[in-house]
């Protein structure tokens, strides 16, 4: 069966279709987040009412969640390495760690959103509220999809269906996860660290 599958999967570049497909999709996602981030920057400082950036953004807290998300990328790398060498225990540990760190990041985001709403910043308050919540919300949605994907892989591992021959599935999930992580680095930099208003 495997030889048959290998023959069916001849490709011109030698790359698996699914992997090339994920890279292509990530190319499209760059434009999606590029547009969201550009809009945020164009509208920065144009709100006619407060609260805006420096009155409300909490850099120390968000630095912790940023560190948390960065570490999840490390865990993702470790998970892929463990799956590739067929180490079931550590594959599960690292997959769980990656998903867990992602969940912690989402927890921080929920905390941040709730705090902001209590401090009087909603989607409707001003331009900053609209652009900030939609940009970070879109990112959070991507993280959520990534967490669900990772948990699915974890379940597959417990079912014994994530051997070294399935490492590509983990690699593709990893591509997505790292991309979402990189997008956050950009968002953290331009939204939190470089405040022009």
């Amino acid at each position, binding site marked *: 069966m495997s030889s*048959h599958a290998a023959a069916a999967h001849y490709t011109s570049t030698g790359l698996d279709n699914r992997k*090339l497909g994920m890279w292509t999709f990530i190319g499209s996602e760059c*434009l999606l987040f590029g547009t969201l981030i550009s809009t945020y920057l164009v509208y920065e400082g144009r709100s006619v009412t407060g609260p805006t950036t420096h009155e409300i953004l909490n850099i120390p807290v968000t630095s912790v969640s940023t560190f948390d998300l960065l570490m999840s990328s490390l865990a993702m790398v470790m998970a892929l390495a463990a799956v590739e060498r067929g180490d079931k225990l550590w594959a599960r540990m690292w997959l769980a760690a990656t998903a867990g760190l992602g969940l912690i990041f989402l927890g921080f985001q929920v905390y941040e959103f709730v705090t902001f709403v209590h401090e009087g910043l909603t989607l*409707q308050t001003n331009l900053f509220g609209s652009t900030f919540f*939609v940009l970070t919300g879109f990112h959070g949605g991507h993280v959520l999809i990534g967490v669900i994907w990772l948990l699915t892989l974890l379940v597959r591992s417990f079912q014994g269906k994530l051997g070294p021959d399935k490492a590509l599935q983990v690699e593709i999930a990893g591509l997505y996860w790292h991309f979402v992580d990189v997008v956050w680095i950009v968002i953290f930099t331009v939204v939190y660290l470089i405040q022009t208003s």
Partner: protein
Amino acid sequence: MATTAAQHAPLAAVAGPTGLWSWITTTDHKRIGILYGVTAFAFFLIGGLEALLLRAQLATPNGRLLDADTYNQMFTMHGTTMVFLAFMPLAAAFFNFVVPLQIGARDVAFPRLNAFSYWVFLFGGLFMNASFLFGAAPDGGWFGYVNLTSKQYSPGLNIDFWVLGLAILGTASLVAAVNFIVTIINMRAPGMRLMRMPVFTWMTLVTQFLVLTAFPVITVGLVFLMFDRFFGTNFYNAVAGGDLLLWQHLFWLFGHPEVYILILPAMGIVSEVLPTFSRKPLFGYAVVVYSGVLIGFMGWGVWAHHMFSVGLGPIADSVFGAATMLIAIPTGVKIFNWIGTMWGGRIDLKTPMLFAIGFVAMFIIGGLSGIMHASPPTDLQQTDTYFVVAHFHYVLFGGGIMGLFAGMYYWWPKAFGRLLDEGLGRWHWILIVIGLNLSFFPMHFIGLLGMPRRVYNYDPELGLGFLNMMSTVGAFIIGASTLVFVYNIWVTAKRARSASANPWNAPTLEWSISSPPPVYNFSVLPEVRSRLPLWREDGLSRIPDVPPEPVHVPGGSYWPIVAAFGQLVIAVGAIARVLPIVLAGVAVLVISIYFWAFEPFEV
């Protein structure tokens, strides 16, 4: 392994399953191509009917057929339908049917995603047109400028249908873009190097990169509008400091690449048809390919020429004006190459060739008026008048639709095993050429004499009654030509399948296998040794009629249509403003994605 081989015995695979269920669950790129073609042609007829209503209203001054609101809905739906529901999916029909055959593949990279794209497109089109049932068809123009489309000025469901419909259709296009980019880059037969690919496949690749990069931009623009309308955000709210130009920039950042998304496939088709019927290889193949790629790149740097009249300032206007004129260079290169291909060739004026020549001639007229309004001062005189309508109908109808018809006549025997009738084809061509020139040429004058676009009535004292009547008569001649085409399909369908594998004696790979092709396309993976494999001695390895060993053909799947249905339910819930329906749609989508991912399906 043994059971798998038995299930996919060659003879069983040749015929393929039949019946409605087999079409609903199909993942065969040829069948999906036909589904795209039939659906898109139906929407083309609807969009054409809307155009005829518009023209009937404008035939005489102070027309009484449509009131102002209905007229707004008609021109909005005419534009939206033609761009998103007729033109793009008709091109997708060709991508689906032709590209895998041209590169020597047995299917696209992701057959189930391909089916998903089609069903999402179908549901998106039905959703958009369902607005008529509620008397609330979109009425903000195909460009949907804010704040005309904001909740404050368009409180009805009209714009909600438009925003949600386009968001659905965008998904279909994006998914298809990923699929075809991977297919073309990764699924080429041995020896099919990039610079051996047929020009149609090349232009498909460029088009899909434009879709991949342009659609996320409009998606974000639509999300902003959706949030403004549904949740009261401030993206396009001038009172809160929002900028109405943001929408225009986002829309045209997508909208101009979209123009090339429409025309490049037609250019690709013409680049296949002209060499075949001139009995000569395409003149300057590499230059035609590079010009297409260059048009793709430059198409991203000219969007603000749609916005000269908003006052972006002299520097922006100059840069975008100059960039727009620059695009004329690769476009002109292509035109000269097409003429060079015909020059000295042994020209055979079959119907596909007539349409291809029509494309070149009409596209030149549209291209020239395009260069005219590349200049900002000239554009200020022409913008929002019928001159612009004349321009883009020459490009998109005279050019684009003629090119797509060339493709239909050309690949019809490959798809259905029957050649369309030549005599009726000629009548179709003659009527369409007369009709479109009669309809669109006077619009240049109508516009320059001062008649604005998108206005449902005009004063008899303008003196434009005669020209408008000419234009209306032309439009109805185009309508008649379409009926001739439909009749041609009907007549042809009753004939016996008699087309040979290569009825036009064409050079490219899709003509090396029977018409229509077997389910598995190629009995063995072909080995390509030439850019014109069927015109060169030893250009192609031998392809046996019967597969020497069993060919694996993927079975069907119904999860793509279920997943697409989930998306439709989400949109229905959103327009009804009922959260449980939206959540039910999400549940259907998520569940079907899981079943899809874990069902046994081997490509």
